[in-house]
Structures are given as C-alpha cells and as structure tokens.
C-alpha cells in the first residue's frame, strides 16, 4: 500500500495547487454571508415549481411576497440586532402588543385611529429602549432580558383586552375616524399587469415596507459608520468600546429599530383585519431568528447580512405556500423549518470555511 503514495500519477495533485490560483473572485463570493441563503432559495423555488403546479401561477407571486413580507419586516431588524451581538425574543409578541395598544387606546378613548397609531409607536419604541437599557444596566445576556420582556408583553397582551373588554380579540375599529386613511397607508394593495386573460399580481403595501426596510438597513449596515459600529459591537464589544465605538448607544439603537419594525408590522396587521387577537405573534420571534440565521447571520454576532435575512424570509414565504400548493399537510411547515435551520447553518458554516481556505 505504501508504494501507492509514491507512484508518479499521484504527484500532480500536490504540485499543481488548483485551490490557490483562481481563489480571489470565488472566495470573495463565497465569503458573502447571503450566498448560502440564495442557493437555498433557488433550490426551494425549483422544488416547489416541480411538485406544486399552483406554485407556477404568476398570480401567486403576490401571495408569496405577502407571506414573506410578514416575516421579512421583522427579520431585517432582528438580523441587524443579531449582527450587533444581541437577541430579541420579544420581537414576535411585540408586534401584537403594538397592534393591541393602537386599537385599544383608540377604541377606549374614542380617539382618531391615527392617534392610537402614534401612541403605539411611542409604546413600541419604549419597549425597544427598555430592552436595550435593561441589557446595559443589568449586563445580563439579551436572551434573558428579552425573554423577560416576552413574558411581560405576552401577559399584557392577554390581560389588558380581558380587563377592558373581557375579550381575547381587540374591538373592530373599521368604523372609526381615520381608519380609511390609515388602512391606505399601512394595508392597501395594488394589482399590476391585470388584463383580460390574466388576473394580475396583487402586491400589498407591506411588501413595499419590507423592500424599503431591507434596502435602507443593508445600506446602513455596509455603507455607513453606524453599520461599522454594529459589526464591531457584535464582533467584540470590549474591543469596539476601547476603540471609541459607543457600544451602548449602538445596541439601544438596534433595539429601537426592532421596536419600530414591530410597530410597522403591528399597524399593518391591525389595519388589514381591523382587529387583532391577543395570542397572535407567539413563536414568530423564532421564525425571525431562523430567517436571519438562514440568511447567514452568526448567532455569536459580528457577521451577517440584511439581504440574507430577507432571502430567509422569502424562503419562509415560499415554503409556507409551497407546502399548501403541493397539497401536503401544512402541519409539517414547522418541521420543515427546523430541518432547514440546521441545514442552512451547516451550509453557511461550510461555505465560510471554504472561503477562509481561499
């Protein structure tokens, strides 16, 4: 056997190092955190295109994008926060809290809907600030702090509607002053490419919010000073602070952004249906985190991409509808997501190692 290692036909393997020669462009591409998610999105798209005939209908593009936006609007700030080295487990229920706050305040005091919306914004930002500030004051891991916030908010989501209205859903607000204009701003939809032979693609304004948030957050992360600080704060908070980065301010800012997005999605949910249920949003925080991780964000912070997180949200949207269109039992969705999370993490890890190997 040992003679095999010295046979001449083995020699070329070691002398011509094919890994180092063309490395740069490929390594640079593989080094991008969103590459794994992009490949995954294409694979899942191809999978459902082949097994689910309804998936091929162009009109369903609007529905898939809508489903994706409902996750993506939150996945974007959650990803930024994760790159900044923190978690927010309260992100799912915070959406419902914001929607409940707007509707209950407007309904209880008979305000214009817009007043409720603005008050809800203040509350959402306050929740985000509280998360960041508690993190800074207590120096506890954000996992713990926001787990606390999650339970506090979830309790309030159930207790307050019960207290005010003895109900688990908020009162319908669609006949209140300001509802129509607010609906137009937060929940209207438009149909494109409609013709006699084609029903058109209906795009909800939430898709626009999602795309805008993605673009703005991606530019902030990669092209601004704040983005540099987010990477540094997540990568090594102590080193960042020692270099002169205001780490606390950066992290509180990230929690505020989560609060803002929770408000945006909360307002969309409320105005789309005119009512919200107390137990909505529970468990969604994990889907946001899954989207961010699938999109290439490192759980330990300091690395990741906003675009990737949005692709992660798109994967969720495609999977959610693809399973339905394929005629499979929707109950399997979560199982599928769980498998995908682990797979995506492994793939991302592998891809990064390839890139590091140059």
């Amino acid at each position: 056997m040992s003679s095999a290692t010295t046979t001449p036909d083995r020699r070329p393997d070691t002398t011509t190092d094919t890994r180092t020669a063309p490395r740069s462009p490929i390594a640079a591409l593989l080094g991008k955190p969103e590459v794994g998610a992009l490949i995954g999105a294409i694979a899942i798209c191809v999978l459902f295109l082949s097994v689910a005939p309804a998936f091929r209908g162009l009109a369903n593009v609007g529905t898939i994008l809508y489903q994706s936006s409902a996750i993506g609007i939150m996945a974007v700030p959650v990803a930024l926060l994760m790159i900044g080295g923190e978690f927010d487990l309260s992100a799912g229920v915070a959406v419902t809290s914001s929607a409940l706050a707007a509707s209950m305040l407007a309904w209880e005091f008979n305000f214009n809907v817009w007043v409720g919306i603005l008050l809800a914004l203040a509350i959402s930002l306050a929740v985000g600030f509280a998360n960041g500030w508690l993190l800074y004051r207590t120096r506890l891991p954000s996992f713990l702090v926001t787990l606390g916030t999650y339970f506090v908010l979830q309790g309030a989501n159930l207790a307050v509607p019960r207290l005010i209205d003895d109900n688990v859903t908020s009162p319908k607000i669609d006949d209140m002053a300001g509802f129509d204009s607010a609906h137009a701003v937060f929940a209207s939809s438009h149909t494109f490419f409609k013709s006699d032979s084609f029903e058109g693609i209906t795009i909800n304004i939430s898709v626009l919010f999602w795309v805008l948030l993605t673009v703005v957050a991606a530019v902030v992360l990669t092209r601004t000073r704040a983005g540099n600080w987010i990477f540094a704060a997540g990568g090594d908070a102590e080193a960042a602070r020692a270099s002169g980065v205001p780490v606390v301010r950066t992290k509180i800012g990230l929690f505020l952004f989560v609060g803002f997005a929770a408000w945006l999605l909360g307002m969309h949910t409320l105005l789309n249906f005119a009512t919200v249920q107390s137990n909505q949003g529970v468990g969604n925080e994990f889907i946001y985190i899954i989207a961010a991780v699938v999109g290439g964000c490192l759980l330990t912070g300091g690395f990741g991409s906003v675009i990737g997180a949005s692709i992660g949200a798109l994967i969720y949207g495609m999977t959610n509808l693809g399973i339905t269109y394929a005629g499979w039992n929707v109950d399997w969705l979560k199982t599928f997501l769980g498998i995908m999370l682990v797979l995506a993490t492994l793939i991302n890890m592998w891809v990064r190692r390839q890139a590091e190997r140059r």
Partner: protein
Amino acid sequence: MSAARGSSSEERAYRDHEEPKNVEPEADSEHDATDSVIRLEGVGKTYGTVRALTGIDLSVQAGEVTCVLGDNGAGKSTLIKIMAGLHEHTSGTMLVSGKARKFGSPREAVEAGIATVYQDLALAPLMSVWRNFFLANEIRKGPLRLLDADRMKRITRDELAKMGIDLPDVDRPVGSLSGGQRQCVAIARAIYFGAKVLILDEPTAALGVKQSGVVLKYVARAAESGLGVVFITHNPHHAFLVGDHFVILKLGQMALDASRDEITVEQLTEQMAGGDELAELRHEMHEAD
C-alpha cells in the same frame, strides 16, 4: 540636546538621526505642568477590594517617550486604561492639556487625541482589516455621509506598507491575520490617529525582531513629531532605545521615576529585577563621583 540626555548615545540609534522639532526649548530641563499633555497627580484606582494603583504622579510630555516598566500585575495596564478612558480613576486628578478630566468612555479619550494600543483588547476578528483600521474614525463623504471605502482601503494599505506589512487584500477579516500582523494593524492605527498622545501597552510582545524595530522607530518618530508617547514594555533594552523618561511600577506604586540622564540601562534592568537597594546604593556612589 542629545548630549544632555545621557551617556549611552550608541543606544539612541533610533532617535539620533533627527532633532526634535516641536518640542519646547525648555522641554527637557524640568517638567512643568504647562507642556504636560497628560499629568497624573496622586492617581489611584481600586477594583472593588483590589487596590491596583496608589499615588501615581506622572507627567507625559509632548515630544517625549515615557516608558512604564514593571512586573506582571504591577498595574501598568490599569494606568494606561485610566488615560485611555477605559477605567475611571478612583482618587487623585488627571490633567489633560492642563484641564482636570475624568473620561467616561474611550470615545472621550479618542476625541481628546489619545490613541491606544491595548495589550488585551484585540480588534474585531470578523471585520475586515480596513474596517478595523478606521473603526470609530470612519471617513465619510457625500450628502448621505456614506463610508468612503476606497479611500479608507488605500490609506490602510499604505499605512501598513509603511510598517513593512505587505497586505494587498485589506478586505480580509482581521481574524485571518497572524497575531503579530494583528498587532501591527492596531499599532499602525494608533499611530495614524494619535493626535496628541500615543499609548502602547507592550506593543512588541508578539512581534519579530524586524517589526519590533519598525515599531520602536515609529515610537521615536511619533515623539519627534511632537506627540506624547507612553510606552509600556517588559524589555528594558527596548525601553532604553527610545525612552526619555522611565517609570517603574511595583505593586501599584511608583518605584522609580527618572529621566534618561539620571539612569543607565543596567540600572533600569536591575531596578526591574527588584534590586532596589543595590541600585540605590550604586546611584549614591554615582552621585558622589
């Protein structure tokens, strides 16, 4: 000027090629408060029950290299962390450019023109070299104040090249560099951004002979250009190559505070080794001569 500084002129190889320009004429006659960029008066620091520093009187002069030496755990890093804004002192006063200051964060120190290379605080490993280099000092352009990545990359490349580090790809994550290369990035950054004071905590500990030489040269050059330099090292020979002023810390207190013409490298080595009494005796004999 260099004659007044002491006997071992052959050890001053790094400094003798040029006379200091920005230094006040009286700079090395006697230290007075006016040209101290940083002056500590009776500064102390406790970590809970640990008394890390007590009664430190130190003045960092513009255009001079102040070397701080001492055993492990003597309090050297604690001392510079106070000046760098990472810790607040718990007693005494710190004057920066003549004004009493207590930095609440490193950012305030950075804004006061104090740049630091820490012993234990590395760079963000997953961030690229150029992003680390310009961290908290980003160059921005245009109405949107976006990062001027091209310019920052070019400057990073140039500054590293000047230190003898050839790194064509400054987009690489810092984590993929060797320990010494990382240290060079941190040093190059501090030298580039240090406007008034440059603090280096054992910068040559991880470096090879060539890079150590480059760093020492930079330390000397920074002082010549008018900066106050605080240089922490375990190596008395490195200290003597560039230092104008030597401070030895022992168990959180000053054991020695001498200018270059008051001490030789042998005495410095002995002091560090703990032979205080012997050294003191020799110093007395030297005085009597």
